[in-house]
């Protein structure tokens, strides 16, 4: 048998082990929401507001999906006070997160903005509960050094 034909560990069926390997890393343009990342670096979470109809967006976007306006959207700091809508702790992790410990993801409702944010729940919340009071905090994540926003205790 050629070397690339191997036996499946469980079933012993012969499988062809692909010699080609694909490593994909995307380059995602963010020029129209660059202000969001500049503010994030200062610890501020920005949403966008439509100057025509007043619609608010998070994630931030550079056009208005509500009224169709496509001029300059207004970037503004979100009032992050709100409450936890739901959460889950991820045990079976994807390959690119396999070096992380188990992490808890939640969705918080920002009460004044009437917007939701999905993020990890940080260590200030040991026992998450639906309905508990929350804020959003920007932190440098230990595991990968990335500047990320978290759902946190006020």
């Amino acid at each position, binding site marked *: 048998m050629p070397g690339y034909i191997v036996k*499946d560990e*469980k*079933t012993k*069926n012969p*499988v062809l082990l*692909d010699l080609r390997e694909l490593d994909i890393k995307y380059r*995602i343009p963010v020029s129209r929401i660059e202000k969001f990342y500049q503010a994030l670096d200062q610890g501020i979470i920005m949403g966008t507001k439509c100057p025509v109809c007043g619609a608010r967006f*998070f*994630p931030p976007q550079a056009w208005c999906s509500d009224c169709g306006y496509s001029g300059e959207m207004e970037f503004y700091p979100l009032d992050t006070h709100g409450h936890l*809508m*739901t*959460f*889950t*702790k*991820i*045990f*079976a*992790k*994807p*390959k*690119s*997160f*396999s070096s*992380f410990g188990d*992490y808890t*993801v*939640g*969705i918080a409702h920002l009460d004044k903005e009437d917007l*939701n*944010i*999905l*993020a*990890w729940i940080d260590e200030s919340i040991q026992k998450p509960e*639906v*309905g508990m009071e929350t804020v959003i905090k920007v932190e440098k994540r230990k595991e990968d050094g*990335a500047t*990320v926003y978290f759902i946190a205790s006020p």
Partner: protein
Amino acid sequence: MNRVGIIGYGISKFGKRTDASMYDLIWEAGSEAIRSSGVDKKDIDYMVVSNMGMWSSEELPAVVAGEVLGIKNAGLHRVEAACASGSSAIASAYDAIRSERSKIAIAVGIEKMNEVESETAIELIGRAGNFLWEYEFFGLTFPGYYALYATAYLNRYSGKEEDLALVSVKNHHYAHLNPIAHFGNEITVEDVMKSRYIASPLKLYDSSPITDGSAAVIMASEDIAKQYTDTPIWIDSIGSNLGTANLSKRNDFVHIEAAREAASKAYRMAKIDAEKPYRFIDGADVHDCFSIAEVLAYEDLGFAERGRGLDMLRNGETYIGGKIPVNVDGGLISKGHPIGATGVAMAVEASKQLLRKAEPGRQIDVKNGRFLTHNVGGTGHYAYVTVYSI
């Protein structure tokens, strides 16, 4: 009216099929569909293939399927609606026939998920939704998305993880009577409760497995269908709707709006009373990729009132003989969920049930002659509800 009917179907064995390539799986389902319909493959003029891909090496599975089945003179395309891709393939073939662009069409659903190891499959399916805002930094997984629904639902309606486990117990029961199912073992609530957490509160036995499989149907316009069979399975209605890419843009996590909209459209078109749909249909296949999803389906389809989905399980109302049998093929949890094949597999199950050809112990009582399928893509990103009749 130019009705559209299914005149033949085929389905492969579902499972971790290390014995079969994508080509083999397509052949298993597709050749059976063509043979059972009695059509000459030269007369198939339209072909649609549903597949999500990424985890399988072939980039153009539709052309692979055409070649495998020896189809030469048909229009061809591939469709993607995540886990509802199969139902979108049925919809596409239906539209082609209704518009008279096609007389005889084949819809093939195929997914070969186990060409990559499970960590990579978890990665690829986790990216489905909104990659930039919900995956890149937060690594949400497919079970994770549904777990967000489960946490909110159990909290709102005071449900327990043990209640959700009843979905898996029922569906494993029926899977063990279905020879093509991924799993063949019966399980108990205790087994589910003892299984490890995947994304809390969902555990391994609350989850559909990573499955390889294929399903295919031959569809034809009414005049043509009647030349081949006295009992075509008619498609009475198809309702579909989209949902937001970002889960965070949903208003609540106790129902799936896209599925509710799709159901309402399908009921209207099939003239089914949306208040009591279970009086008009004999059974249903619903999208139980995770246990919580079956509970949401009961409510989004109007089988149960809001917040009463768990009661249906506690009272055994979705077993054969109950108010409405659901997922008596084993559902996605136990029959398996080869993403792009699932919706077509549901059409196969609808056909088998309405023709009274289901295996002993899992044949529903056909009284109204109608069967419903509910197929949700992603986490309520796409939804299809289809009503079949005989």
